[in-house]
């Protein structure tokens, strides 16, 4: 991410995490310069916040990665690579499939959330990824019975 082209000097070393920059809508260095022309003050604020978050994010990233292995819920969308962490920061999703990946985490409205049947059309890629993670977790806790079932299910998705 060539944030350095617009914000010079001090933020050079913070340009590594493309994901974070993207989530802020700063996906396109070209359009950044336009954003600057249109909303100079907002832009400055945006960059300042971004720099703060990038530092924070780099520290959190490793812990986050480990945490995601432990839980059996997906924290990364296999279709678009968006993460739950980014959702919490931006209140946005990366692609329509994020709805079925992060859906349970995002309680929209106060209605009953138990109608899981209503969340339809999970894409095969997501279903597969979920199974893989569950399988990994089962193996780690040495629950080989479950692991065998999951492995069979996985085979069927091939």
């Amino acid at each position, binding site marked *: 991410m060539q944030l350095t082209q617009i914000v010079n000097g001090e933020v050079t070393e913070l340009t590594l995490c493309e994901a974070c920059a993207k989530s802020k809508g700063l996906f396109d260095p*070209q*359009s950044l310069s*336009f954003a600057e022309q*249109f909303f100079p003050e907002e832009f400055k604020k945006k960059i300042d916040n971004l720099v703060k978050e990038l530092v924070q994010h780099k520290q959190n990233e490793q812990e986050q990665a480990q945490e995601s292995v432990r839980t059996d819920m997906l924290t990364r969308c296999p279709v678009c690579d968006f993460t739950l962490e980014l959702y919490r920061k931006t209140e946005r*999703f*990366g*692609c*329509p*499939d994020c709805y079925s990946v992060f859906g349970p985490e995002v309680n*929209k409205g106060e209605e009953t959330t138990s109608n899981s049947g209503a969340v339809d059309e999970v894409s095969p890629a997501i279903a597969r990824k979920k199974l893989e993670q569950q399988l990994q977790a089962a193996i780690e806790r040495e629950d080989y019975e479950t692991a065998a079932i999951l492995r069979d299910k996985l085979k069927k998705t091939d």
Partner: protein
Amino acid sequence: MNFKTLTKQASSWFKNPGGACDIIIGTMVRAVRNLRGHRFPGWSTAEGRKAVADILLPVLRELPGNKTGFEAEMKDLSYEQRRILLERKQLSHCMAARQDGCHVLINKKQDITYMVNEEEHLAIHFYESGTDNIQLTKQIQRARKTLAALEKRLDIAHNRRDGYLTSMPAESGSGLQLYTVLQLPCMSIAGMMQQVTRGLEKLMLNISPFYSELGDDTGHLYVIYTAPLICGGEEDMANHLRNIVYTLAEHEMQARLKMTSTEEGFSVLIDKISRAYGLLEYARRMEYAELINTLAMLRMGTVCGYVQPTDRSPNQFLAEMAACYPTMAPYNMQYITQDVAENCSQEILRPLLCRNLIKDVIFTQNTLNSEYE
């Protein structure tokens, strides 16, 4: 239609179709849709945006009025051209800052703007200019008709729990949002706008200045709009907003009557209208914001009968004034005068051009329009 042709025609909100009303400027339905299996524009790459545009553009081009309309990729529009589209209220602010793979289409009639890779893959704005009888439910039906035609040919992201999926989960649902624009000069002179703002909040409606970049109250124009609508609640919300708009218009009329009922109030109102008239007659330099404030007073004065054209109908005069909002705006002025007036600034040109506007228009403080009583 090329850019020059586009700027020669008034954009939808600035057409005055009739009805002796200067209060309700117009309505807009914003509709958004996304394609299944593609990243949202804010999380996308140049290639991703191009892929989305390649799917959407051929379908959009076949919609009625688009072949002879205006189309451009944002990267091919200059800074000035974007500003002009913003002045004409034909582009969202978010879209104005977009580049590669982001496209804008405007139909021939210039009452629909299609934006590809805005906040969402597709955002459509359906405009209707002011009338005494705003028809938000009809506007929704019109939007739905277009959306249905699109959905037949596109794989639109949707599920039963969330409705139409948007980049912000909190905004998913019907994918529709309603806007109205009102001019409330007397209420703002009377200092009632804060009260209105608080009231609207309680009614689940938002209000913001129409010309936010020029200040909070420039032209006494306000946008009143709903949050993105949930599925199933569209018609109710349309009727809700419609009722509120009529109530506000009613309050504005009441405020005018109340003001003219006392000598003190009458002098305040008539002073503002006469000064506005005088400015257009005698000013030698004028900024855009000043012009907009002046026109607001003249429009009110015309509806109240203090300002009267002698050779044309009041409606015709109201329409002429409405057309000045986009044409006299800074970037458009620069654009239309660049060839003819090199050494003449637009502050000088503006009052010169406006002088024609009040030709054969008289000011009188004694005649109350009978319609208005």
